[in-house]
């Protein structure tokens, strides 16, 4: 594997689908100059019943910062009309932390000397039983990106186990071909999330110096391949703080928007992750993405895509998350461990990043109920 190969070039054997989404998103990202947006454009955006991409861009601009309260008011109203007072609750289960990539910001980086582990079938089932006992009915399965340690058969078996214990099964694993997604759908998975990390190809190349993940377009088209493979819903995110967060948030929302226009039946979800410290890399931080900027991104996502689920991660503190679900987030994780086997007595493998909200499922449920919202454990039927 050549370390300096072009991140826009596919590797041999990678599936290429016919799609014009990548060019459209990258062109729009290049054309978006956050500092050029005016307060007038922001006010106009806030008065429109339906936002166009240029309105979304204005809401992500520095010029929208003084309008944050107005955005919050409107976002809350839009969220309640669309979702009522329902807040979906789920938890991630990390199956393995073996990884072939060398993302410079990630604890699972192949060069990071951490305790590596992979759960076997019995261990997965024990974890799932422990999680299901907390009342959760939705699970998100995650792995590091290692085709050798977590191959398709392993992932399929994990999905089948998850279907036994949960109503909703989501995946956050390395990008697959259409056939791979179709297989995992048959095994019980209905949701696929792939973070693009940053939508700037040059930064992307610097941050992902090696491994299959270095191939920007293959990762970019993951959601579309998942939909073509029969997956019901797809999730998008940029890891805010890696590059210009405003332009990355814009590209993320536009990516989701264009995909839904192309596949109107696809359920769309967004996350708003910020860069966090990771093991052996505790100086990582999200630079200029403070809570106000993070909230601005979340609110802009909500107003641009009223129908999309928005997940708020345990990377954020309890106080921020509790407010986020009032204003626009519709999905929250609870009882989270980002290590391998973290729902048993002792971690078998190390964590991907540091979390900031350690509350149990019962505590999160209580926090939701305390705000006149209702925790929803299952909002899905597998057909």
């Amino acid at each position, binding site marked *: 594997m050549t370390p300096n190969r072009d991140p826009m070039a596919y590797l041999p054997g990678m599936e290429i689908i016919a799609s014009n989404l990548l060019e459209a998103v990258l062109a729009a990202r290049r054309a978006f100059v956050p500092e050029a947006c005016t307060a007038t454009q922001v006010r106009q955006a806030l008065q429109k019943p339906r936002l166009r991409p240029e309105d979304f861009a204005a809401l992500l601009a520095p010029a929208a910062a003084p309008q944050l309260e107005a955005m919050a008011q409107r976002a809350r109203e839009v969220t309640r009309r669309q979702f*009522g*007072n329902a807040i979906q609750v789920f938890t991630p289960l990390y199956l393995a932390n073996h990884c072939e990539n060398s993302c410079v910001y990630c604890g699972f980086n192949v060069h990071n000397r951490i305790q590596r582990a992979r759960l076997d079938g019995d261990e997965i089932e024990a974890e799932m039983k422990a999680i299901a006992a907390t009342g959760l009915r939705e699970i998100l399965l995650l792995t590091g990106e290692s085709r050798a340690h977590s191959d398709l058969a392993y992932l399929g078996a994990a999905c089948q186990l998850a279907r036994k214990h949960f109503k909703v099964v989501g995946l956050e694993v390395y990008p697959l071909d259409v056939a791979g997604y179709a297989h995992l759908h048959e095994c019980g998975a209905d949701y696929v999330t792939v973070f693009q990390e940053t939508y700037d190809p040059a930064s992307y190349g610097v941050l992902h110096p090696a491994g299959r993940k270095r191939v920007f377009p293959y990762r970019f088209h993951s959601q579309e391949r998942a939909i073509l493979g029969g997956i019901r819903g797809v999730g998008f995110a940029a890891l805010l703080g890696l590059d210009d967060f405003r332009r990355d948030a814009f590209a993320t929302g536009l990516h989701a928007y264009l995909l*839904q226009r192309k596949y109107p039946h696809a359920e769309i979800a967004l996350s708003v992750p910020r860069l966090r410290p990771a093991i052996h890399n505790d100086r990582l931080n999200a630079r200029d993405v403070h809570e106000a900027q993070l909230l601005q991104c979340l609110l802009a996502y909500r107003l641009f895509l009223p129908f999309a689920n928005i997940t708020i991660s345990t990377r954020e503190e309890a106080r921020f998350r509790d407010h986020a679900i009032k204003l626009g987030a519709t999905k929250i994780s609870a009882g989270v461990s980002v290590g391998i086997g973290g729902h048993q007595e002792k971690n078998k493998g190390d964590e991907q990043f540091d979390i900031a909200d350690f509350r149990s499922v019962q505590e999160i449920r209580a926090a939701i109920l305390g705000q006149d919202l209702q925790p929803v454990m299952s*909002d899905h039927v597998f057909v």
Partner: protein
Amino acid sequence: MTQQDALVLGGHAFTSRFILGSGKYSLDLIEAAVAQAGAQIITLALRRIDPGGEANILDYIPRGVTLLPNTSGARTAEEAVRIARLAREMGCGDFVKIEVIRDTKYLLPDNAETLKATERLAKEGFIVLPYMYPDLNAARDMASAGAAAIMPLGAPIGSNQGLTTKAFIQILIDELDLPVIVDAGIGRPSQACEAMEMGAAGIMANTAIATAGDVPAMATAFRQAIEAGRTAYLAGLGPTLASGACASSPLTGFLRDRP
């Protein structure tokens, strides 16, 4: 309401014409909302049913209320049929509201697939209430396929915009021999009342009640509006004058004029 004025769906008679939704407000408000609405039918999404789970919606619905499970989540007729069967297996009874939606943005119903699902589920003995876009041809076909009622949308779901499809709903009411229950988009009691005055057989509402400040109180307001509209319809509304008064020179005056 008199006994003669029952809403009859698949051979079952109901004195209430208000079908209550359950998806967007807290489970522990359902009982009060049902009571204040006087509702005898409640819709619920199969996707929210979770036997043995902590937040199983079925545990919160008062006994004696007829369940109208919907097939939300279905993108095709095939999926709607499967979801309907699952609902019956879970003990939700024979009623089903068909929702086939393959647009996650506006959640508009797909009439063609809805018709196919209506046909198949009616044959399987379900009491089928298809949620549909108010198109007369599609509604007639659904009636022929065995629907027990037709549920046209008044406006985009969740929009609280009211009867934006009013002219087309009136055509369905006038032309179909089945009950027409206006579903989706009704945002205020006055809009529910207006639909009932037009001759709608019932109203289904969720968002308008769920997003109100006081859920049970808004359920009361809707019940009253629906009853008022029904009474007005049965009484026969007085004519509305389009403009001015009656013509001063009668057009038929010539009949009395002798040459």
